[in-house]
Protein backbone atom coordinates (compact mmCIF):
# COMPACT_ATOMS: atom_id res chain seq x y z
CA UNK A 1 0.00 0.00 0.00
CA UNK A 2 1.36 3.35 -1.05
CA UNK A 3 2.35 5.77 1.65
CA UNK A 4 0.51 8.54 -0.21
CA UNK A 5 -2.69 7.11 1.23
CA UNK A 6 -1.33 7.34 4.79
CA UNK A 7 -0.83 11.11 4.66
CA UNK A 8 -3.00 13.69 6.34
CA UNK A 9 -4.73 16.43 4.34
CA UNK A 10 -2.31 18.93 5.88
CA UNK A 11 0.69 16.81 4.86
CA UNK A 12 -0.58 16.13 1.35
CA UNK A 13 -1.37 19.79 0.82
CA UNK A 14 2.24 20.65 1.64
CA UNK A 15 3.57 17.83 -0.54
CA UNK A 16 1.50 19.06 -3.48
CA UNK A 17 2.56 22.67 -3.02
CA UNK A 18 6.22 21.63 -2.72
CA UNK A 19 5.78 19.45 -5.86
CA UNK A 20 6.95 16.28 -4.11
CA UNK A 21 4.16 14.48 -5.98
CA UNK A 22 1.35 15.46 -8.31
CA UNK A 23 -2.39 15.54 -7.72
CA UNK A 24 -2.64 12.83 -10.36
CA UNK A 25 -0.24 10.55 -8.45
CA UNK A 26 -2.12 11.20 -5.21
CA UNK A 27 -5.43 10.49 -6.95
CA UNK A 28 -4.16 7.28 -8.59
CA UNK A 29 -2.83 5.97 -5.26
CA UNK A 30 -6.28 6.43 -3.76
CA UNK A 31 -8.05 4.83 -6.73
CA UNK A 32 -5.81 1.78 -6.25
CA UNK A 33 -6.62 1.71 -2.53
CA UNK A 34 -10.35 2.00 -3.23
CA UNK A 35 -10.29 -0.84 -5.77
CA UNK A 36 -8.40 -3.09 -3.37
CA UNK A 37 -10.87 -2.50 -0.54
CA UNK A 38 -14.13 -2.15 -2.43
CA UNK A 39 -15.35 -5.71 -2.12
CA UNK A 40 -14.35 -6.20 1.52
CA UNK A 41 -15.47 -2.88 3.02
CA UNK A 42 -18.29 -1.82 0.64
CA UNK A 43 -17.64 1.77 1.67
CA UNK A 44 -18.72 3.21 -1.68
CA UNK A 45 -22.10 3.01 -3.39
CA UNK A 46 -20.52 4.33 -6.57
CA UNK A 47 -16.92 5.25 -7.38
CA UNK A 48 -16.04 8.02 -9.82
CA UNK A 49 -12.38 7.44 -10.80
CA UNK A 50 -12.62 9.10 -14.25
CA UNK A 51 -14.16 12.22 -12.73
CA UNK A 52 -11.51 12.27 -10.00
CA UNK A 53 -8.65 11.94 -12.50
CA UNK A 54 -10.08 14.70 -14.68
CA UNK A 55 -10.30 16.95 -11.62
CA UNK A 56 -6.73 15.96 -10.65
CA UNK A 57 -5.47 17.17 -14.03
CA UNK A 58 -7.10 20.54 -13.46
CA UNK A 59 -5.59 20.63 -9.96
CA UNK A 60 -2.11 19.93 -11.30
CA UNK A 61 -2.43 22.82 -13.74
CA UNK A 62 -3.54 25.13 -10.94
CA UNK A 63 -0.81 23.94 -8.59
CA UNK A 64 1.75 24.47 -11.34
CA UNK A 65 0.63 28.10 -11.60
CA UNK A 66 0.54 28.47 -7.82
CA UNK A 67 -3.21 29.21 -7.78
CA UNK A 68 -4.43 26.04 -6.06
CA UNK A 69 -7.43 26.21 -3.71
CA UNK A 70 -7.46 25.24 -0.04
CA UNK A 71 -8.09 21.57 -0.86
CA UNK A 72 -6.46 21.50 -4.29
CA UNK A 73 -5.86 17.92 -5.39
CA UNK A 74 -7.06 16.32 -2.13
CA UNK A 75 -9.02 13.03 -2.61
CA UNK A 76 -12.35 13.23 -0.78
CA UNK A 77 -15.42 11.04 -0.43
CA UNK A 78 -18.95 12.40 -0.48
CA UNK A 79 -21.64 10.73 1.62
CA UNK A 80 -24.36 9.60 -0.78
CA UNK A 81 -26.83 11.95 0.89
CA UNK A 82 -25.32 14.99 -0.86
CA UNK A 83 -26.70 15.72 -4.32
CA UNK A 84 -23.91 15.71 -6.88
CA UNK A 85 -24.54 17.05 -10.37
CA UNK A 86 -24.47 14.24 -12.91
CA UNK A 87 -23.57 11.53 -10.36
CA UNK A 88 -26.28 9.26 -8.92
CA UNK A 89 -27.50 10.11 -5.44
CA UNK A 90 -29.33 7.31 -3.63
CA UNK A 91 -29.46 8.19 0.09
CA UNK A 92 -28.84 4.45 0.49
CA UNK A 93 -32.43 3.81 -0.58
CA UNK A 94 -34.09 1.75 -3.31
CA UNK A 95 -36.68 4.50 -3.67
CA UNK A 96 -34.11 6.88 -5.22
CA UNK A 97 -33.19 4.37 -7.93
CA UNK A 98 -31.42 6.01 -10.87
CA UNK A 99 -31.83 9.50 -9.38
CA UNK A 100 -29.19 11.75 -10.95
CA UNK A 101 -29.32 15.33 -9.65
CA UNK A 102 -29.14 18.22 -12.10
CA UNK A 103 -27.58 20.36 -9.36
CA UNK A 104 -24.74 20.28 -6.83
CA UNK A 105 -25.26 20.58 -3.05
CA UNK A 106 -23.73 23.75 -1.60
CA UNK A 107 -21.27 21.78 0.55
CA UNK A 108 -19.97 19.54 -2.23
CA UNK A 109 -19.76 22.61 -4.47
CA UNK A 110 -17.69 24.41 -1.82
CA UNK A 111 -15.32 21.43 -1.69
CA UNK A 112 -15.04 21.16 -5.49
CA UNK A 113 -14.51 24.91 -5.81
CA UNK A 114 -11.62 24.61 -3.31
CA UNK A 115 -9.99 21.98 -5.55
CA UNK A 116 -11.16 18.79 -3.79
CA UNK A 117 -11.35 15.58 -5.85
CA UNK A 118 -14.56 13.56 -5.55
CA UNK A 119 -13.58 9.88 -5.46
CA UNK A 120 -17.14 8.60 -5.21
CA UNK A 121 -20.34 8.44 -3.18
CA UNK A 122 -20.15 6.80 0.22
CA UNK A 123 -22.40 4.16 1.75
CA UNK A 124 -24.78 5.10 4.57
CA UNK A 125 -27.82 3.90 6.45
CA UNK A 126 -30.94 4.40 4.34
CA UNK A 127 -31.89 8.09 4.53
CA UNK A 128 -29.29 8.34 7.33
CA UNK A 129 -31.55 6.34 9.66
CA UNK A 130 -29.35 3.96 11.60
CA UNK A 131 -26.29 3.58 13.79
CA UNK A 132 -24.51 0.70 12.04
CA UNK A 133 -24.85 1.14 8.26
CA UNK A 134 -26.96 -2.04 8.28
CA UNK A 135 -30.07 -0.37 6.84
CA UNK A 136 -28.45 0.58 3.50
CA UNK A 137 -30.16 -0.86 0.42
CA UNK A 138 -26.64 -1.25 -0.99
CA UNK A 139 -25.49 -3.65 1.72
CA UNK A 140 -23.51 -3.39 4.94
CA UNK A 141 -20.36 -1.32 5.00
CA UNK A 142 -17.68 -2.79 7.26
CA UNK A 143 -15.30 -1.21 9.74
CA UNK A 144 -11.61 -1.60 8.79
CA UNK A 145 -11.01 -2.43 12.47
CA UNK A 146 -11.73 -6.00 13.59
CA UNK A 147 -12.31 -7.23 17.11
CA UNK A 148 -9.05 -8.84 18.19
CA UNK A 149 -10.77 -11.09 20.74
CA UNK A 150 -12.63 -13.15 18.12
CA UNK A 151 -11.55 -11.62 14.78
CA UNK A 152 -15.14 -10.64 14.05
CA UNK A 153 -16.02 -8.14 11.33
CA UNK A 154 -17.54 -5.02 12.84
CA UNK A 155 -19.97 -2.31 11.80
CA UNK A 156 -18.42 1.12 11.11
CA UNK A 157 -21.26 2.84 12.99
CA UNK A 158 -23.80 4.99 11.26
CA UNK A 159 -25.31 6.60 9.57
CA UNK A 160 -22.09 7.94 7.99
CA UNK A 161 -20.58 4.43 7.93
CA UNK A 162 -19.00 4.71 4.49
CA UNK A 163 -17.50 8.10 5.36
CA UNK A 164 -15.88 6.79 8.54
CA UNK A 165 -14.77 3.47 7.04
CA UNK A 166 -13.19 5.01 3.93
CA UNK A 167 -11.28 7.64 5.91
CA UNK A 168 -10.09 5.11 8.49
CA UNK A 169 -8.98 2.65 5.78
CA UNK A 170 -7.02 5.27 3.82
CA UNK A 171 -9.32 5.22 0.78
CA UNK A 172 -9.92 8.99 0.95
CA UNK A 173 -8.25 11.71 3.03
CA UNK A 174 -11.50 13.17 4.29
CA UNK A 175 -15.21 12.71 3.78
CA UNK A 176 -18.42 14.62 4.14
CA UNK A 177 -20.90 13.26 6.65
CA UNK A 178 -24.16 14.32 8.27
CA UNK A 179 -25.33 14.12 11.86
CA UNK A 180 -28.98 14.08 12.94
CA UNK A 181 -28.58 12.23 16.25
CA UNK A 182 -24.91 11.23 16.23
CA UNK A 183 -24.29 10.07 12.66
CA UNK A 184 -20.92 11.84 12.33
CA UNK A 185 -19.56 11.36 15.85
CA UNK A 186 -20.60 7.75 16.56
CA UNK A 187 -19.04 6.26 13.37
CA UNK A 188 -15.94 8.43 13.94
CA UNK A 189 -15.62 6.92 17.43
CA UNK A 190 -16.08 3.37 16.06
CA UNK A 191 -13.38 3.76 13.38
CA UNK A 192 -10.71 5.81 15.17
CA UNK A 193 -11.40 8.95 13.14
CA UNK A 194 -12.25 12.56 14.01
CA UNK A 195 -15.88 13.57 13.42
CA UNK A 196 -17.10 17.16 13.77
CA UNK A 197 -20.79 18.09 13.88
CA UNK A 198 -20.96 21.87 13.63
CA UNK A 199 -23.58 24.15 15.15
CA UNK A 200 -26.97 23.93 13.46
CA UNK A 201 -26.88 26.58 10.73
CA UNK A 202 -23.09 26.60 10.25
CA UNK A 203 -23.19 24.52 7.06
CA UNK A 204 -25.81 24.81 4.36
CA UNK A 205 -28.30 21.94 4.11
CA UNK A 206 -29.17 22.87 0.51
CA UNK A 207 -28.88 19.85 -1.73
CA UNK A 208 -28.53 17.43 1.19
CA UNK A 209 -31.33 14.84 1.21
CA UNK A 210 -33.45 15.83 4.23
CA UNK A 211 -34.10 13.47 7.15
CA UNK A 212 -35.10 15.67 10.14
CA UNK A 213 -34.72 19.30 9.12
CA UNK A 214 -34.42 20.85 12.60
CA UNK A 215 -31.65 18.40 13.57
CA UNK A 216 -29.67 17.62 10.39
CA UNK A 217 -26.24 19.20 10.12
CA UNK A 218 -23.30 18.27 7.90
CA UNK A 219 -19.64 18.12 8.87
CA UNK A 220 -16.35 16.37 8.08
CA UNK A 221 -14.80 13.04 9.07
CA UNK A 222 -10.99 13.02 8.89
CA UNK A 223 -7.98 11.28 10.43
CA UNK A 224 -6.77 14.25 12.49
CA UNK A 225 -8.23 17.27 14.27
CA UNK A 226 -6.19 19.59 12.03
CA UNK A 227 -7.69 17.98 8.91
CA UNK A 228 -11.21 18.42 10.30
CA UNK A 229 -10.44 22.11 10.84
CA UNK A 230 -9.18 22.44 7.25
CA UNK A 231 -12.24 20.71 5.82
CA UNK A 232 -14.89 22.45 7.92
CA UNK A 233 -13.52 25.86 6.96
CA UNK A 234 -14.27 25.02 3.32
CA UNK A 235 -17.60 23.25 3.93
CA UNK A 236 -19.11 26.00 6.10
CA UNK A 237 -20.73 28.98 4.44
CA UNK A 238 -23.75 31.20 4.63
CA UNK A 239 -26.16 30.13 1.92
CA UNK A 240 -29.25 32.19 0.98
CA UNK A 241 -30.73 28.97 -0.45
CA UNK A 242 -30.98 27.48 3.08
CA UNK A 243 -33.10 29.76 5.26
CA UNK A 244 -31.68 28.15 8.42
CA UNK A 245 -28.08 28.78 7.38
CA UNK A 246 -26.62 31.50 9.60
CA UNK A 247 -24.88 34.57 8.21
CA UNK A 248 -21.80 34.86 10.42
CA UNK A 249 -18.13 34.78 9.58
CA UNK A 250 -16.43 31.39 9.30
CA UNK A 251 -13.21 31.66 11.34
CA UNK A 252 -9.88 30.24 10.21
CA UNK A 253 -10.13 27.13 12.37
CA UNK A 254 -6.52 26.13 11.74
CA UNK A 255 -5.40 29.17 13.73
CA UNK A 256 -7.15 27.95 16.89
CA UNK A 257 -5.46 24.54 16.97
CA UNK A 258 -2.40 25.60 18.95
CA UNK A 259 -4.36 27.46 21.65
CA UNK A 260 -4.13 24.79 24.36
CA UNK A 261 -6.48 24.54 27.33
CA UNK A 262 -4.66 26.49 30.05
CA UNK A 263 -7.24 28.17 32.26
CA UNK A 264 -10.12 26.76 30.24
CA UNK A 265 -13.13 25.48 32.19
CA UNK A 266 -14.14 21.97 31.19
CA UNK A 267 -17.51 20.69 32.41
CA UNK A 268 -18.14 17.04 33.30
CA UNK A 269 -21.89 16.32 33.15
CA UNK A 270 -22.75 13.74 35.80
CA UNK A 271 -25.84 12.51 33.92
CA UNK A 272 -23.59 10.96 31.24
CA UNK A 273 -22.55 8.32 33.76
CA UNK A 274 -25.34 5.88 32.87
CA UNK A 275 -26.35 2.52 34.31
CA UNK A 276 -24.64 -0.42 32.66
CA UNK A 277 -21.91 1.69 31.09
CA UNK A 278 -18.81 -0.48 30.65
CA UNK A 279 -15.94 0.18 33.04
CA UNK A 280 -13.57 0.89 30.15
CA UNK A 281 -15.73 3.80 28.96
CA UNK A 282 -15.65 5.29 32.48
CA UNK A 283 -11.85 4.83 32.54
CA UNK A 284 -11.46 6.49 29.15
CA UNK A 285 -13.49 9.45 30.36
CA UNK A 286 -11.31 9.73 33.50
CA UNK A 287 -8.22 9.56 31.31
CA UNK A 288 -9.55 12.44 29.20
CA UNK A 289 -10.16 14.47 32.36
CA UNK A 290 -6.57 13.80 33.51
CA UNK A 291 -5.13 14.78 30.13
CA UNK A 292 -6.92 18.13 30.09
CA UNK A 293 -6.12 18.78 33.76
CA UNK A 294 -2.43 18.11 33.08
CA UNK A 295 -2.51 20.77 30.35
CA UNK A 296 -3.91 23.34 32.75
CA UNK A 297 -7.67 23.07 32.29
CA UNK A 298 -9.98 23.51 35.24
CA UNK A 299 -12.37 20.58 35.64
CA UNK A 300 -15.86 21.45 36.91
CA UNK A 301 -18.73 19.07 37.64
CA UNK A 302 -21.97 20.19 36.03
CA UNK A 303 -25.49 18.86 35.81
CA UNK A 304 -27.69 18.52 32.70
CA UNK A 305 -30.80 17.15 34.44
CA UNK A 306 -32.90 16.49 31.32
CA UNK A 307 -30.26 14.37 29.57
CA UNK A 308 -32.20 11.11 29.86
CA UNK A 309 -35.17 12.61 28.05
CA UNK A 310 -33.16 13.65 25.00
CA UNK A 311 -33.28 10.29 23.23
CA UNK A 312 -37.03 9.66 23.73
CA UNK A 313 -37.76 13.24 22.62
CA UNK A 314 -35.55 12.66 19.60
CA UNK A 315 -37.58 9.57 18.66
CA UNK A 316 -40.64 11.79 18.40
CA UNK A 317 -39.13 14.85 16.70
CA UNK A 318 -36.92 13.04 14.17
CA UNK A 319 -39.54 10.55 12.90
CA UNK A 320 -42.18 13.33 12.77
CA UNK A 321 -39.97 15.49 10.59
CA UNK A 322 -38.89 12.46 8.55
CA UNK A 323 -42.48 11.43 7.85
CA UNK A 324 -43.09 14.89 6.46
CA UNK A 325 -39.81 15.12 4.49
CA UNK A 326 -40.15 11.63 3.02
CA UNK A 327 -43.71 12.24 1.81
CA UNK A 328 -42.11 13.48 -1.42
CA UNK A 329 -41.08 9.94 -2.42
CA UNK A 330 -44.25 8.82 -4.17
CA UNK A 331 -43.08 7.53 -7.54
CA UNK A 332 -44.17 10.61 -9.47
CA UNK A 333 -41.23 12.96 -9.97
CA UNK A 334 -38.09 10.85 -9.51
CA UNK A 335 -36.82 7.48 -8.36
CA UNK A 336 -38.67 4.20 -8.18
CA UNK A 337 -42.27 3.77 -9.35
CA UNK A 338 -44.23 0.58 -8.71
CA UNK A 339 -47.50 0.62 -10.70
CA UNK A 340 -50.92 0.20 -9.09
CA UNK A 341 -54.58 0.13 -10.09
CA UNK A 342 -54.99 3.81 -9.26
CA UNK A 343 -52.80 6.63 -8.01
CA UNK A 344 -53.27 5.72 -4.33
CA UNK A 345 -52.17 2.13 -4.83
CA UNK A 346 -49.25 3.38 -6.93
CA UNK A 347 -48.12 5.52 -3.98
CA UNK A 348 -48.60 2.66 -1.52
CA UNK A 349 -46.88 0.06 -3.70
CA UNK A 350 -43.96 2.37 -4.49
CA UNK A 351 -43.37 3.27 -0.85
CA UNK A 352 -43.77 -0.34 0.34
CA UNK A 353 -41.14 -1.59 -2.09
CA UNK A 354 -38.88 1.48 -2.09
CA UNK A 355 -38.39 1.98 1.66
CA UNK A 356 -36.58 -0.46 3.94
CA UNK A 357 -37.94 -1.68 7.29
CA UNK A 358 -36.27 0.93 9.52
CA UNK A 359 -37.37 3.83 7.32
CA UNK A 360 -40.93 2.48 7.24
CA UNK A 361 -40.95 2.17 11.04
CA UNK A 362 -39.83 5.76 11.47
CA UNK A 363 -42.28 7.13 8.91
CA UNK A 364 -45.07 5.25 10.68
CA UNK A 365 -44.05 6.53 14.13
CA UNK A 366 -43.81 10.05 12.72
CA UNK A 367 -47.17 9.77 11.02
CA UNK A 368 -48.74 8.56 14.25
CA UNK A 369 -47.32 11.27 16.52
CA UNK A 370 -48.44 13.98 14.09
CA UNK A 371 -51.90 12.50 13.50
CA UNK A 372 -55.07 14.24 14.64
CA UNK A 373 -55.50 14.07 18.40
CA UNK A 374 -51.91 13.04 19.18
CA UNK A 375 -49.90 16.08 18.10
CA UNK A 376 -49.99 17.80 21.51
CA UNK A 377 -49.28 14.66 23.50
CA UNK A 378 -46.24 13.72 21.46
CA UNK A 379 -44.74 16.32 19.13
CA UNK A 380 -45.55 19.43 21.15
CA UNK A 381 -44.47 17.70 24.35
CA UNK A 382 -41.16 16.68 22.75
CA UNK A 383 -40.50 20.23 21.53
CA UNK A 384 -41.10 21.49 25.08
CA UNK A 385 -38.64 18.93 26.44
CA UNK A 386 -36.21 20.18 23.82
CA UNK A 387 -36.48 23.67 25.32
CA UNK A 388 -35.56 22.19 28.71
CA UNK A 389 -32.57 20.32 27.25
CA UNK A 390 -31.34 23.51 25.59
CA UNK A 391 -31.81 25.43 28.84
CA UNK A 392 -29.70 22.84 30.71
CA UNK A 393 -26.84 23.50 28.30
CA UNK A 394 -27.22 27.28 28.53
CA UNK A 395 -26.98 27.11 32.31
CA UNK A 396 -23.95 24.81 32.14
CA UNK A 397 -22.21 27.11 29.68
CA UNK A 398 -22.52 29.98 32.16
CA UNK A 399 -20.01 28.04 34.27
CA UNK A 400 -17.84 26.22 31.72
CA UNK A 401 -16.39 26.72 28.24
CA UNK A 402 -16.79 23.18 26.95
CA UNK A 403 -18.16 19.79 28.03
CA UNK A 404 -16.28 16.49 27.94
CA UNK A 405 -18.15 13.16 27.64
CA UNK A 406 -17.68 9.73 26.08
CA UNK A 407 -18.93 9.61 22.46
CA UNK A 408 -20.59 6.20 22.67
CA UNK A 409 -21.64 3.85 25.49
CA UNK A 410 -19.45 1.08 24.01
CA UNK A 411 -17.14 0.04 21.17
CA UNK A 412 -18.10 -1.12 17.65
CA UNK A 413 -20.22 -4.28 17.49
CA UNK A 414 -20.67 -6.94 14.83
CA UNK A 415 -23.39 -6.85 12.18
CA UNK A 416 -26.58 -8.40 13.54
CA UNK A 417 -25.52 -8.07 17.17
CA UNK A 418 -27.84 -5.18 18.03
CA UNK A 419 -31.45 -4.19 17.42
CA UNK A 420 -32.61 -7.44 15.85
CA UNK A 421 -35.51 -8.01 18.22
CA UNK A 422 -36.02 -4.49 19.51
CA UNK A 423 -35.17 -1.34 17.50
CA UNK A 424 -34.72 0.64 20.73
CA UNK A 425 -31.55 -1.36 21.52
CA UNK A 426 -29.91 0.16 18.41
CA UNK A 427 -31.24 3.63 19.22
CA UNK A 428 -29.37 3.63 22.56
CA UNK A 429 -26.09 4.01 20.64
CA UNK A 430 -26.86 7.71 20.29
CA UNK A 431 -27.49 8.36 23.98
CA UNK A 432 -24.46 10.69 24.40
CA UNK A 433 -24.55 12.35 20.99
CA UNK A 434 -28.23 13.14 20.49
CA UNK A 435 -28.31 15.92 23.11
CA UNK A 436 -26.14 18.21 20.95
CA UNK A 437 -28.54 17.80 18.02
CA UNK A 438 -31.56 18.53 20.19
CA UNK A 439 -29.94 21.80 21.34
CA UNK A 440 -28.30 22.65 17.98
CA UNK A 441 -24.81 22.66 19.53
CA UNK A 442 -21.47 21.72 17.97
CA UNK A 443 -19.79 18.47 19.01
CA UNK A 444 -16.63 16.64 18.03
CA UNK A 445 -15.46 13.07 18.60
CA UNK A 446 -11.72 12.48 18.99
CA UNK A 447 -10.07 9.03 19.06
CA UNK A 448 -8.86 8.54 22.63
CA UNK A 449 -7.79 4.92 22.98
CA UNK A 450 -8.60 1.28 22.36
CA UNK A 451 -11.19 -0.94 24.00
CA UNK A 452 -10.37 -4.28 25.61
CA UNK A 453 -11.36 -5.74 22.22
CA UNK A 454 -8.62 -3.77 20.45
CA UNK A 455 -11.05 -1.39 18.76
CA UNK A 456 -11.20 2.42 18.84
CA UNK A 457 -13.06 4.50 21.41
CA UNK A 458 -13.79 8.21 21.22
CA UNK A 459 -14.24 11.13 23.58
CA UNK A 460 -16.73 13.85 22.76
CA UNK A 461 -16.51 17.59 23.31
CA UNK A 462 -19.68 19.71 23.17
CA UNK A 463 -19.36 23.46 22.75
CA UNK A 464 -21.28 26.72 22.81
CA UNK A 465 -23.20 27.74 19.68
CA UNK A 466 -20.81 28.63 16.83
CA UNK A 467 -17.73 27.93 18.96
CA UNK A 468 -16.30 25.26 16.66
CA UNK A 469 -12.95 27.04 17.00
CA UNK A 470 -12.99 26.42 20.75
CA UNK A 471 -13.81 22.75 20.18
CA UNK A 472 -10.92 22.32 17.74
CA UNK A 473 -8.59 23.90 20.28
CA UNK A 474 -9.53 21.43 23.04
CA UNK A 475 -9.76 18.53 20.57
CA UNK A 476 -6.19 19.17 19.43
CA UNK A 477 -5.03 19.02 23.05
CA UNK A 478 -6.84 15.68 23.51
CA UNK A 479 -5.33 14.32 20.30
CA UNK A 480 -1.83 15.39 21.35
CA UNK A 481 -2.26 13.65 24.71
CA UNK A 482 -3.86 10.48 23.35
CA UNK A 483 -1.53 10.20 20.36
CA UNK A 484 -2.77 9.13 16.94
CA UNK A 485 -4.07 5.58 16.76
CA UNK A 486 -2.18 3.22 14.45
CA UNK A 487 -3.85 2.60 11.08
CA UNK A 488 -6.00 -0.56 11.14
CA UNK A 489 -4.44 -3.72 9.67
CA UNK A 490 -5.17 -3.90 5.97
CA UNK A 491 -6.78 -7.37 5.91
CA UNK A 492 -8.71 -6.80 2.70
Amino acid at each position, binding site marked *: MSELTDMTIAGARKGLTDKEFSAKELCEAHITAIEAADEALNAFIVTTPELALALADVSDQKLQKGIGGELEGIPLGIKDLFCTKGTQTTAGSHILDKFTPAYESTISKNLLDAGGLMMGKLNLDEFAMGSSNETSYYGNCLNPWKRDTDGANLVPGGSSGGSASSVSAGLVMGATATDTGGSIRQPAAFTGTVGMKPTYGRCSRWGVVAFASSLDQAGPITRTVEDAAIMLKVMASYDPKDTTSVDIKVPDYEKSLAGGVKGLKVGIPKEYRVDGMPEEIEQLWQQGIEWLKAEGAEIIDVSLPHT*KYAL*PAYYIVAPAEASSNLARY*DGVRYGLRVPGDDILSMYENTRAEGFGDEVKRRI*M*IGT*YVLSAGYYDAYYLKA*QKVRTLIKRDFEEAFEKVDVLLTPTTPGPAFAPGEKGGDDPVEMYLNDIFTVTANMAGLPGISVPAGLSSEGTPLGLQLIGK*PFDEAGLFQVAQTLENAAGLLPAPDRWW
Partner: protein
Amino acid sequence: MKVDEALVRRIAHLARIKVEDADVEHLKGELTSILGFVDLLSEVDTDDVEPMTSAVDRCMQPRPDVVNDGGYADDIVGNAPVKDDHYFMVPKVVE
Protein backbone atom coordinates in the same frame (compact mmCIF):
# COMPACT_ATOMS: atom_id res chain seq x y z
CA MET B 1 -49.49 2.18 24.78
CA LYS B 2 -50.20 -1.08 22.97
CA VAL B 3 -50.38 -0.93 19.18
CA ASP B 4 -52.98 -3.31 17.73
CA GLU B 5 -53.57 -4.49 14.18
CA ALA B 6 -56.20 -1.84 13.42
CA LEU B 7 -53.80 0.93 14.46
CA VAL B 8 -50.94 -0.51 12.38
CA ARG B 9 -53.24 -0.52 9.34
CA ARG B 10 -54.55 2.97 10.04
CA ILE B 11 -51.04 4.46 10.38
CA ALA B 12 -49.83 2.61 7.29
CA HIS B 13 -52.73 4.02 5.31
CA LEU B 14 -52.03 7.57 6.52
CA ALA B 15 -48.35 7.07 5.62
CA ARG B 16 -49.29 5.66 2.18
CA ILE B 17 -47.30 2.49 2.75
CA LYS B 18 -48.83 -0.83 1.78
CA VAL B 19 -48.41 -3.32 4.62
CA GLU B 20 -48.51 -7.06 3.91
CA ASP B 21 -50.42 -9.27 6.36
CA ALA B 22 -47.17 -10.99 7.31
CA ASP B 23 -45.66 -7.69 8.45
CA VAL B 24 -48.47 -6.61 10.78
CA GLU B 25 -47.38 -8.78 13.69
CA HIS B 26 -43.78 -7.57 13.93
CA LEU B 27 -44.80 -3.95 13.29
CA LYS B 28 -47.19 -4.19 16.26
CA GLY B 29 -44.30 -5.20 18.50
CA GLU B 30 -41.79 -2.69 17.15
CA LEU B 31 -44.15 0.29 17.23
CA THR B 32 -45.28 -0.64 20.75
CA SER B 33 -41.65 -0.78 21.86
CA ILE B 34 -40.78 2.64 20.37
CA LEU B 35 -43.92 4.31 21.72
CA GLY B 36 -43.24 2.74 25.11
CA PHE B 37 -39.74 4.19 25.04
CA VAL B 38 -40.90 7.72 24.23
CA ASP B 39 -43.57 7.56 26.95
CA LEU B 40 -40.74 8.34 29.38
CA LEU B 41 -41.45 11.99 28.54
CA SER B 42 -44.75 11.86 30.43
CA GLU B 43 -42.84 12.21 33.71
CA VAL B 44 -41.43 15.62 32.68
CA ASP B 45 -43.35 18.67 33.90
CA THR B 46 -43.69 20.95 30.86
CA ASP B 47 -46.65 23.04 32.02
CA ASP B 48 -44.98 26.44 31.73
CA VAL B 49 -42.48 25.59 29.03
CA GLU B 50 -42.56 27.05 25.53
CA PRO B 51 -41.97 24.56 22.73
CA MET B 52 -38.70 24.95 20.88
CA THR B 53 -39.27 26.30 17.40
CA SER B 54 -35.73 26.94 16.21
CA ALA B 55 -32.42 25.24 16.97
CA VAL B 56 -30.53 28.54 16.83
CA ASP B 57 -31.53 31.90 18.27
CA ARG B 58 -31.57 33.73 14.97
CA CYS B 59 -34.33 35.20 12.85
CA MET B 60 -34.62 33.95 9.33
CA GLN B 61 -33.52 36.49 6.74
CA PRO B 62 -36.27 37.78 4.45
CA ARG B 63 -35.37 37.97 0.78
CA PRO B 64 -36.63 40.18 -2.02
CA ASP B 65 -39.81 38.82 -3.59
CA VAL B 66 -38.45 38.47 -7.09
CA VAL B 67 -38.10 35.69 -9.65
CA ASN B 68 -34.46 34.61 -9.44
CA ASP B 69 -34.52 31.01 -10.54
CA GLY B 70 -36.20 28.71 -13.04
CA GLY B 71 -36.46 28.12 -16.75
CA TYR B 72 -35.16 24.53 -16.81
CA ALA B 73 -38.17 22.31 -17.27
CA ASP B 74 -36.03 19.63 -18.93
CA ASP B 75 -34.04 19.26 -15.69
CA ILE B 76 -37.20 19.21 -13.56
CA VAL B 77 -38.70 16.25 -15.41
CA GLY B 78 -35.30 14.72 -16.16
CA ASN B 79 -35.60 12.05 -13.45
CA ALA B 80 -39.33 11.32 -13.84
CA PRO B 81 -40.18 7.60 -14.09
CA VAL B 82 -42.87 8.42 -16.67
CA LYS B 83 -43.16 11.74 -18.48
CA ASP B 84 -44.69 13.27 -21.57
CA ASP B 85 -42.97 16.42 -22.79
CA HIS B 86 -42.77 18.59 -19.65
CA TYR B 87 -45.49 16.73 -17.74
CA PHE B 88 -45.19 14.09 -15.01
CA MET B 89 -47.50 11.23 -15.99
CA VAL B 90 -49.62 9.42 -13.35
CA PRO B 91 -52.56 6.99 -13.42
CA LYS B 92 -55.87 8.67 -14.21
CA VAL B 93 -57.12 10.63 -11.16
CA VAL B 94 -60.39 12.18 -12.39
CA GLU B 95 -62.97 9.97 -14.11
